[in-house]
């Protein structure tokens, strides 16, 4: 049970990091084409 809980937490953290980095990557790409800042304004 404890092991499964740890597994779920680790997976959730990986999902969150991947999701945030995916959005940031698109923002960085659009900024490169159109201009803009990587942080500030919209949350992601």
């Amino acid at each position, binding site marked *: 049970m404890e092991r499964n809980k740890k597994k779920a937490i680790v997976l959730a953290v990986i999902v969150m990091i991947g*999701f945030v980095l995916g959005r940031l990557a*698109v923002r960085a790409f659009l900024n490169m084409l*159109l201009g803009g800042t990587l942080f500030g304004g919209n949350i992601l």
Partner: protein
Amino acid sequence: MSKRQRIIPVWLGILVFLVAFIAGAVSKFAIQPSWAKEYSAKWSDEIGTLTTDLPYGEGDEQKFDLYLPKDNSREAYGLAVYLHAGGFTSGDKSDDRDMLAWLCKKGYVAAGINYTLARDLGGVSSNGASVYTQSNEIKAAIPEVIKAAAAAGYPIDKMTIAGGSAGHALAMIYSYRDAKEAPVPVVFTFGAVGPSCFYREDWDCYGMTGEDEQSYQITMAMFSAMLGELIPIERVKDGSYLEMMKPISAMEWITPDAPPTVVAYGTYDRVQSFKASLRLKAALEKNGVDFRYFEMPHSGHGLQNDSRIQKQWIMAIDKYLDKYMPL
């Protein structure tokens, strides 16, 4: 190390990360702010009648789409024209169908107008198309749009003209340069990220600002292409190119009679000059025009990073439409 591997195998961690990364990237396009739905519509016969590709000239691209609202009982209608983006070299009136559908749903006769696209902006276009010829096409199209609406039973008594980027530039030229010759009063103009003037010191995004031969050459090539006429390099050097650029410099035509205006620009715009928009703002202020200017301080040409201010901008457009184009 062995303990971590026992909890999550490395391959599973990588796979989950990749799936989440792709989902995050897709979500950037797929998830729109909830408020955006209020200012956009999917076209359907419930909204009205759409007639596409009505000609206003002999050219292949000289066509417009006419959106007529369901209610045809009114004595007169406001016309809302929206001009497409695309750097003067690409794009199509169908790109703005959701915006035009929204305007039609509000009760306006709406129109998307195509114009002859320039083949490139690296020199005078091989097909002769330029911002100047495009602005004249729009000027020629408006009376035809109004005639077509009247013929369909929708007489027009006032209009607004708007657009995005290149379309915004053309909308501003019509509003400030040509409105006095319009068949009906131009009571409002709106849009985003359209270039309004061509002071080369503003155009650092294309490397025009230096006092060297390369900067002069870039200025000459790009501005000549936009104007559709070769600007001698001497005129770039002595600054008199600005007189030549006046026909396509909307800002230069602003007078106290200019229509109310709502615009938005991104501070970090890499496609057109943000600094030029500050001259537009100053000209509107100086002439006492009723206007709203929205600066998106984290965005570029796509206004992509400032959703909160984008909402304020579209709400201002809606408010100005209600004020100057009452139904």
